[in-house]
């Protein structure tokens, strides 16, 4: 009997890049269901489906759903409390010359 397999969250990077410029592979996310915070690359992504379904590796609840139609995309992140994205260091406030 075939068990449905998943791939890791790195596969979300390409599809998400169509929507955002954020590098998801280096982002952290918090699961709305169990509160676990971890790398988005660690999510379990089920791709043999009408869309991409990314689940928390701890509780298996859905954190991200991404559906790509021919001319539209839908992103549902209600299962993700937040995304923590690395940003370039802010320039310190320029003092008086």
């Amino acid at each position: 009997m075939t068990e449905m397999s998943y791939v890791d969250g790195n596969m979300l990077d390409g599809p998400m890049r169509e929507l955002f410029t954020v590098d998801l592979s280096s982002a952290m996310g918090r699961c709305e269901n169990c509160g676990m915070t971890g790398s988005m690359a660690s999510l379990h992504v089920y791709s043999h489906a009408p869309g991409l379904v990314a689940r928390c590796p701890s509780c298996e609840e859905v954190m991200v759903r991404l559906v790509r139609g021919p001319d539209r995309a839908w992103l549902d992140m209600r299962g993700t409390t937040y995304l923590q994205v690395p940003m370039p260091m802010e320039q310190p406030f320029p003092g008086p010359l």
Partner: protein
Amino acid sequence: MGIVSPGFQGRPRTQEPALPPGQYLTEDFPVLSAGPTPRVSLDTWEFVISAENGSEHRWSWQELMALPQETPTVDIHCVTRWSKLGTSWQGVSLDTLLADVDTGAHFALAHSYGGYTTNLPLDDLRGGQAWVVHTFDGAPLPAEHGGPARLLVPHLYFWKSAKWVRGLRLKTMDEPGFWETAGYHDYGDPWREQRYQGD
């Protein structure tokens, strides 16, 4: 006026299967899944119809198997564009399961072991159009295809035929399910190619 009877010596017309627009024919049975495959013991399996007034009708596995069984042979159409013709199932008609349910609801939200949901108009579950099936091609329905039992609503895209079905919640208002809240069509008629919201 021709004197030759057309078709007398002609080759029989190739019987092209009628497929909904945008679909291709497949002979195998692709497995699609949005999550881990639930493993449900027949000892604890149940199917529950909850009416909008809060009343519940429950069937154990033994009770389901004791109901009149039907053997639909139907074509199925997945929104990912494959269609499979002449699939053979065995199960219980939703007409049988809904017969004693007192409801004025117009919609149903099917829910499954594993958390999947999908919404359908209640009328589409009646009139010999829908079943809870437990047997495919003469054998118990494998878990990856939705066993022990799945919904079978072949006139709609196959995401409406919820795998691992556990029950129906009857509703006065349409409540979109798992894929319907992520861009897929609320109704999903393959012949009208209702794949996405707004199609």
